[in-house]
């Protein structure tokens, strides 16, 4: 059962522009949503999270938006930098910490 979906396997943007990564979920019981970034040969690293009681969380160049009615969240990176090139995973958790991941979106930021 794929409760968290990232329908775009890849995204390419120009340096300095905005990157928008999307994620959909099916389980309305999820109460936290997280974004992880993964470089090759490394484990995922935490980027930003949002509680289900909020609709926006911002940290520097990264902003996550949550639309509970649509069961959709997105990660905005502004401005995009070449070092942001990585695979981004959307994840969602239930109360006990069980984390479900999407399949990931490979972001390429071109200089």
């Amino acid at each position, binding site marked *: 059962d794929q409760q968290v979906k990232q329908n775009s396997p890849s995204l390419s943007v120009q340096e300095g522009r905005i990157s928008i990564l999307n994620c959909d979920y099916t389980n309305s019981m999820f109460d*936290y949503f*997280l974004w992880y970034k993964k470089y090759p040969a*490394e484990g*995922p690293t935490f980027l930003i999270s949002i*509680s289900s009681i909020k609709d926006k969380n911002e940290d520097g160049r990264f902003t996550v938006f949550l639309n509970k009615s649509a069961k959709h969240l997105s990660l905005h990176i502004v401005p995009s930098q070449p070092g942001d090139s990585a695979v981004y*995973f959307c994840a969602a958790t*239930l109360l006990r*910490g069980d984390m479900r*991941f999407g399949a990931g979106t490979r972001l390429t930021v071109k200089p």
Partner: protein
Amino acid sequence: EAGVAQSPRYKIIEKRQSVAFWCNPISGHATLYWYQQILGQGPKLLIQFQNNGVVDDSQLPKDRFSAERLKGVDSTLKIQPAKLEDSAVYLCASSLEFTAGGEQYFGPGTRLTVT
């Protein structure tokens, strides 16, 4: 602060052989997770420990996979016997406690190839 350590980084075995992976979490982290990441997919939780007790192993194929966390610190994940479909990266993660939204810290993973 040292991160999550895993070994080996790579392992190639033949089907029906056995293999074991080791994980050392961040010091003081009570919760430890093992994930399986198949190529092109996101990580899938196999088992979750709180100290040395199992919190969730509902997605662990218990006929061939086993895991233990002795003394609530290091953990080992074993596959016996391995199948071709077990080829994946096995990720270990730890967190201070298993609260929802709690950040998990991942190790670099062990890439297993079963031939």
